[in-house]
């Protein structure tokens, strides 16, 4: 049988005695560790999976699209300095007629080489085979698209390929590095029902789009160490005569952009939050261990008098801390692994690529263990040093009563008659201001964490309200395969169910201010628009400026531009004019940032007559199906975006991703509030049980005594609520730009109910602590309490 030394037995019994507090501390440690493990664990899996997938499929470094260039140009591109490999191909957007949908969907066709597999951006074949280069009706589709429509190998659907409706047969199901995050044109979220990516033999595709012996897309792999910007510049020069619309690096490739953004968010979460939890844990640990050392002064003195060394005594308390932290660490690892698996599953819903199975990363574990140990030491070392430094004689003498002084507030209080119990509460708070302050900060932090988490909901609601209800009010937007004469708008007006239309002309541009530039689209819009409207920060309607650009504030900030500045606009299509345009207005958009011009001015800039690329339509719902049936057959239509479908998928995404995270943070916040408050209450009880028992003997009722004990907790909680709300406000203010991406900006809006809910949840936590502690007050043993010396 293992012999446990008496000191270790004492250690274990002490731990058991304060198991509630110990568990609360371990739980807070666990939360910090869980967040760390979940964030970095998920990050590691996604990052490794992404890189492995990119490597295996030879994901390109540079992408470019153009109108049409002869295949012979491929050699010139291949010979550009820095280019390791160039591959040309044909891509085309098509209007899909899917059997399970009344409305049309959008398809992105990509060519497969005539021989072999793609050199770059290869697909991973999950089922079936590559389409035969010779059979024009064979395609491979992404797994997400096939699943969304319940397609299996051999199934077919119709598409309008270059003006002709053709059946397409699915012969392969694949995954692709280019559409891990498959965002359709005009969509805000991936929607595999409405946007499908499909592969077809090059010959067949070339024939369908009159691109025999030509290509309209090229992707490059760069040599190691090559400068992407330089290659892009040269590539643009080569492609310019062929209608090149500006090459871009992998970082700007939409799918990769979103994926890497997501990884950055994880990095931020994993870096910012765990230290906060660990600091809270350190604080709790400090309070608890200091208290234990204080109550065990005599024992410590005795041990030393018996001949135990300072080190042996210190080691006991150090082990105490290590056990607590290690318990939290283990709980955190379990919880973190569980969350990481869940998060990876959640990512799998939106990011379609072969995910590696989650394994706990030893590096992450080591990091978690080290930071939790550091937190433990920060928290406990002071108390351990106290124990080590006590001399036996001093330790065994009874401590003098804690000295109190009349505080500055005494004069203030002198004006009121306040009861002695209330005075005790205030004196105790002011006697230990640091401890009271830390408790307030701890509870305030949990309020703040709640406010900040719930702020996201408010922000998203505001985003939805402004974007979907105030700015965008059309039923759907019809986008065309190519720019069309404006007369197409009138043709649409005559279709059944069409009540109102609004034309848009979109032109791909590079907006440049000196060295900084951004690839964007200028939207040409009409004045007096009623369906899709521009809004300023007060949500007032802004008319398209006749003589300049209205720029999204987000882009303006990126490019260091303000109203009155001149921006260089490099048009990336057609004649590719380069012009200088003044910025006359900033608009505030929360979703999808753009630049805006009057449509006539934009058409003049392009030296074209009235031209549109898409039309917003308001539809009479009674005739919607009739309209969809017609749109499905219109060759000019590349696809439609329904506002309600976009809103639904936006909400669904937000619900499934954000609500989980928010729920998690709310649980964490409650736990912190509980941990801090419970510890404060238990410490107060342990320090004052003798005084409270004396009061009971003197004839105070249980309620009166509970008031003295919990009044302090109440005061501290009440003080921490406004502090927490302010802190939450500031944290939300700080987080809102951090979370904003090139797609979304989180408006800074906090509803009163957010503060309300936060305060209520934290108060509820404090009340539960109070009730638990009250049970102990009720159970105070008067006789024993009187016998014990302070």
């Amino acid at each position, binding site marked *: 049988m293992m012999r446990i030394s008496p000191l270790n037995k004492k250690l274990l019994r002490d731990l058991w005695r304060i198991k509630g507090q110990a568990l609360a501390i371990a739980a807070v440690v666990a939360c910090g560790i869980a967040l760390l493990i979940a964030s970095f664990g998920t990050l590691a899996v996604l990052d490794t999976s992404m890189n492995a997938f990119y490597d295996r499929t030879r994901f390109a470094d540079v992408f470019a699209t153009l109108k049409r260039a002869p295949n012979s140009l491929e050699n010139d591109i291949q010979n550009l300095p820095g280019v390791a490999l160039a591959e040309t191909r044909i891509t085309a957007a098509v209007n899909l007629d899917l059997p399970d949908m009344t409305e049309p969907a959008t398809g992105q066709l990509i060519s497969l080489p005539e021989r072999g597999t793609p050199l770059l951006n290869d697909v991973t074949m999950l089922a079936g085979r590559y389409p035969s280069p010779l059979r024009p009706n064979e395609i491979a589709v992404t797994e997400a698209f096939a699943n969304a429509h319940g397609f299996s190998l051999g199934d077919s659907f119709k598409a309008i390929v270059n003006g002709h409706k053709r059946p397409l047969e699915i012969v392969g199901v694949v995954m692709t590095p280019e559409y891990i995050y498959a965002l359709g044109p005009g969509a805000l979220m991936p929607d595999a029902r409405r946007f499908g990516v499909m592969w077809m033999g090059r010959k067949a595709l070339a024939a369908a789009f009159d691109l025999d012996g030509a290509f309209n897309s090229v992707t490059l792999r760069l040599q190691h160490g090559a400068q992407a910007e330089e290659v892009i510049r040269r590539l643009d020069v080569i492609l310019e005569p062929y209608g090149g619309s500006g090459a871009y690096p992998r970082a700007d490739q939409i799918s990769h952009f979103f994926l890497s953004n997501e990884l950055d968010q994880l990095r931020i979460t994993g870096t910012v939050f765990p230290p906060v939890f660990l600091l809270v844990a350190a604080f709790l640990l400090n309070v608890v261990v200091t208290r234990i050392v204080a109550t065990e002064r005599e024992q410590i003195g005795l041990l030393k008098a018996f001949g135990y060394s300072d080190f042996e005594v210190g080691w006991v308390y150090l082990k105490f801390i290590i056990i607590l932290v290690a318990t939290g660490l283990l709980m955190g690892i379990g919880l973190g692994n569980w969350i990481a698996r869940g998060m990876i599953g959640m990512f799998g819903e939106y990011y379609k690529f072969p995910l590696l199975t989650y394994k706990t990363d030893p590096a992450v574990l080591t990091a978690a263990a080290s930071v939790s140990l550091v937190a433990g030491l920060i928290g406990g070392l002071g108390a351990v040093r106290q124990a080590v430094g006590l001399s036996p004689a001093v330790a065994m003498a009874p401590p*003098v*009563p*804690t*000295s*109190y*002084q*009349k505080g500055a507030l005494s004069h203030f209080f002198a004006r009121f008659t306040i*009861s*002695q*119990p209330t*005075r*005790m509460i205030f*004196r*105790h708070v002011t*006697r230990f201001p640091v401890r009271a302050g830390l408790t307030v900060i701890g509870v305030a932090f949990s309020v703040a964490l709640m406010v900040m988490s719930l702020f996201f909901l408010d922000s998203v609601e505001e985003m939805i309200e402004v974007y979907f209800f105030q700015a965008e009010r059309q039923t759907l937007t019809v986008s065309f395969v190519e720019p069309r004469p404006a007369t197409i708008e009138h043709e649409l007006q005559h279709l059944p169910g069409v009540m109102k239309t609004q034309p848009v002309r979109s032109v791909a541009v590079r907006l440049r201010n000196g060295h900084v530039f951004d690839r964007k689209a200028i939207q040409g819009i009409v004045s007096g628009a009623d369906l899709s409207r521009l809004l300023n920060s007060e949500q007032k309607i802004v008319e398209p400026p006749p003589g300049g650009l209205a720029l999204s504030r987000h882009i303006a900030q990126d490019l260091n531009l303000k109203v009155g500045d001149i921006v260089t606009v490099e048009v990336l299509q057609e004649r590719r004019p380069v012009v200088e345009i003044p910025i006359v207005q900033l608009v505030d958009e929360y979703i999808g940032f753009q630049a805006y011009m009057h449509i006539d001015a934009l058409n003049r800039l392009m030296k074209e007559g009235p031209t549109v690329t898409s039309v917003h339509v308001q539809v009479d719902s009674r005739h919607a199906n009739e309209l969809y049936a017609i749109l499905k057959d219109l060759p000019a239509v590349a696809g439609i975006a329904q506002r309600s479908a976009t809103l639904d998928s936006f909400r669904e995404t937000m619900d499934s991703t954000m609500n989980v995270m928010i729920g998690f943070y709310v649980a964490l916040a409650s736990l912190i509030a509980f941990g801090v408050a419970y510890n404060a209450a238990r410490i107060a009880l342990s320090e004052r049980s*003798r*005084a409270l028992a*004396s*009061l*009971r*003997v*003197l*004839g*105070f*009722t*249980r309620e*009166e005594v509970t008031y003295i004990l919990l009044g302090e907790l109440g005061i501290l909680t009440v003080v921490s609520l406004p502090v927490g709300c302010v802190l939450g406000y500031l944290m939300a203010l700080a987080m809102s730009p951090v979370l904003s991406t090139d797609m979304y900006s989180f408006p800074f809006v906090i509803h009163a109910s957010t503060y309300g809910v936060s305060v209520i949840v934290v108060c509820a936590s404090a009340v539960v602590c109070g009730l638990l502690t009250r049970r102990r007050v009720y159970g105070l043993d*008067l*006789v024993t309490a*009187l016998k014990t*010396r*302070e």
Partner: protein
Amino acid sequence: MPDGVHDGTRVTETFRAEGLTKIYETGDLKVQALRGVNLTLYEGELVVLLGPSGSGKSTLLNILGGIDLPTSGRLFFKDLEITACSASELTAYRRDHVGFVFQFYNLIPSLTARENVGLVTEIAEDPMQPDEALEMVGLDHRLDHFPSQLSGGEQQRVAIARAIAKRPEVLLCDEPTGALDSKTGVVVLEALERANRELGTTTALITHNAGIKDMAERVIRFADGQIASVEDIPFKKAPQELTW
């Protein structure tokens, strides 16, 4: 009101205990602290309870004070049957009738001398002013001092002031001088004696210290959970005359 005859004078009974037993059970261990104690305490008398540790005197004092209940037997405080009281009735009993003085003073460190006394006067029905109570124990010059600023003897005198300020019918003192040197102890006993004399409070005082017995009217000796003897002291001494 049950009356009796004591020393030839008709006096009123304060406590009447009938067959009190107390058994503490902790796990398998049973400790019999009281084995059938019958006792009557009279109004205004000062009784010293003597006996070695574990003899049952503290247990009795706790039961008299309403902070512990006997395992069997009955206890009356005047007409009130303490042994039939609920927890809240016991609290009210302590609040209204009993003053406690403890060996380790049990002052509230965050309150000054005056406020410690005020703690009790605030919840009492007809209390003295805290200053008055502190004056009775000779601490009128230390009103605004916190416990940490007072000597042990001074702290104990604050505790006595706190106990007597509500004009209790009963004053129960458990080793009030146990933590003090003899010189300081005498000052504390003087305060107790004065309270007993001037307020007519029935006072029961536990001590190990046989030298103190001479200030009492009766001395009750405890041994092994029972009353071993009761001794009347015909000529009680003033605390200054005591030696130990």
